[in-house]
């Protein structure tokens, strides 16, 4: 404990982590207690899930396309061009799909959540909710959390699907990789565990984005300047958290779902 109080940055980090954890705890308690406003959840699914599709699809398409091209340029020199399919597929499922979707959603939705809740905070709208006997966590955070936990894994799946389609198109139509080998090798080397890993990461990144975005919004101070700062911090903190936690997730999940093998 002495270490925590000796270094102000460590202390601030622990304090922030504690606030996010408490918000998450309160949110899950509300969800378990059935205090979920489904009308608002549907609205948030439209905002988060439907509204993020263009960003996620474009990210998936161009990531799949460029990664395919790079892998092809390297592998073709070794006469391994048909390995492009499985390499791109595993990379998209295990890393690129979840991480890039997480970063895109953090930029688009995390920022919007923080700005919206932050503006409500500085204009006393959150106090008005409390004065009207409405719990702000139940009203603002729970619908966003439920919607995000539903939407993010689906967005990850969508990003991967479009990445694979773009990869197939670039490999077979532009780089002249034999279609049958591309598909066959991709099919053989991509397993159910890759899908589980992608969905697990999507779920974890959803938790990171929603609770950091909402916590930043709820702790906003100092008017418009504060809203701007909260929004920026929400994006930066959630993006960095995604990148850092992704490493530990990869190491942990690789123990449960080891990479390699034909099945």
């Amino acid at each position, binding site marked *: 404990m002495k270490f925590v109080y000796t270094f102000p940055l460590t202390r601030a980090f622990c304090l922030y982590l504690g606030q996010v954890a408490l918000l998450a705890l309160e949110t899950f308690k509300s969800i378990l207690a059935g205090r979920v406003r489904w009308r608002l959840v549907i609205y948030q699914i439209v905002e988060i899930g439907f509204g993020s599709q263009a960003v996620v699809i474009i990210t998936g398409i161009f990531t799949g396309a460029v990664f395919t091209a790079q892998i092809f340029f390297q592998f073709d020199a070794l006469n391994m061009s048909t390995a492009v399919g499985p390499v791109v597929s595993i990379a998209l499922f295990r890393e690129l799909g979840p991480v890039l979707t997480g970063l895109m959603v953090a930029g688009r939705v995390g920022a919007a959540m923080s700005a919206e809740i932050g*503006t*409500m905070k500085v*204009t*006393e*709208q959150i*106090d*008005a909710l*409390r*004065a*009207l*006997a*409405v*719990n702000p966590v139940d009203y603002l955070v729970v619908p966003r959390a439920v919607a995000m936990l539903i939407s993010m894994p689906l967005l990850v799946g969508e990003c991967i699907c479009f990445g694979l389609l773009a990869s197939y198109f670039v490999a077979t139509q532009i780089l002249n990789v034999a279609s049958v080998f591309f598909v066959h090798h991709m099919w053989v080397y991509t397993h159910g565990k890759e899908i589980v890993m992608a969905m697990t990461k999507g779920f974890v990144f959803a938790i990171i984005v929603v609770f950091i975005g909402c916590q930043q919004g709820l702790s906003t101070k100092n008017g418009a300047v504060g809203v701007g700062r909260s929004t920026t911090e929400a994006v930066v903190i959630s993006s960095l958290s995604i990148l850092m936690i992704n490493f530990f997730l990869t190491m942990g999940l690789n123990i449960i779902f080891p990479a390699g093998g034909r099945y």
Partner: protein
Amino acid sequence: MSATSVNLIEVRDLKQTLSGQEILRGVNLDIPRGETLVLLGQSGGGKSVFLRHLIGLMRPISGSIRIEGEEIAKLDERELEPVRRKIGMLFQDGALFDSMDVFENVAFPLRERGERNEKIIRDKVARSLELVLLQGQERKMPVNLSGGMRKRAALARAIISEPSCILYDEPTAGLDPIVSDTINRLIRRLQSHLHVTSIVVTHDMTSTDHVADHVALLREGRIHFTGSLASLHSSTDQVITDFIEGRSHEID
């Protein structure tokens, strides 16, 4: 104190410190049921902070707040909800939800309390808007309302659940004299129609003269004076006369 006591709210030795500064240094105040109490004081003197304690938006460092006999100072957010349902609050800038139009803002407390019958909601919203003279503005968004209209819409939202007490935080701040007069008349009108207890925080003496049954003056974190409006005006206390006449001794 029983629930039928003459006082709706009793505050004892309320203390609050913000950013190391003592804002409330032991406030003692009784607020009689069914009457309008105006809490006067200088800007930054802790009036709004005091008001926020009465609805549990702030928790005191020490002291007691009893509403209808129930101690609320130590209640958590969930335990405060039944207490808050008995109290309406008008925030300084209205605090309307800017994602909703006027109708949805006013209907919000009803929907949140489980009312699903649209006809009942429409009727109650219409009645509330009529009481605050805002008929015909239902579909306007808050951003398209003037300052006075925003406050009236917020007032309609505060009264729709028929609270036993309404808290007004600087209801005339930032409004021109005509709109201020309208708000003052509304406060009186609501009190006579709904028989609510009203607590008005202001530093506007014109507003005080319009609406007050009782007056309290908050100074340096304590209640310096309580009494009727007449006794305020007849006081010879230098602090009170300076406040009423708007005299400053800071730069002589």
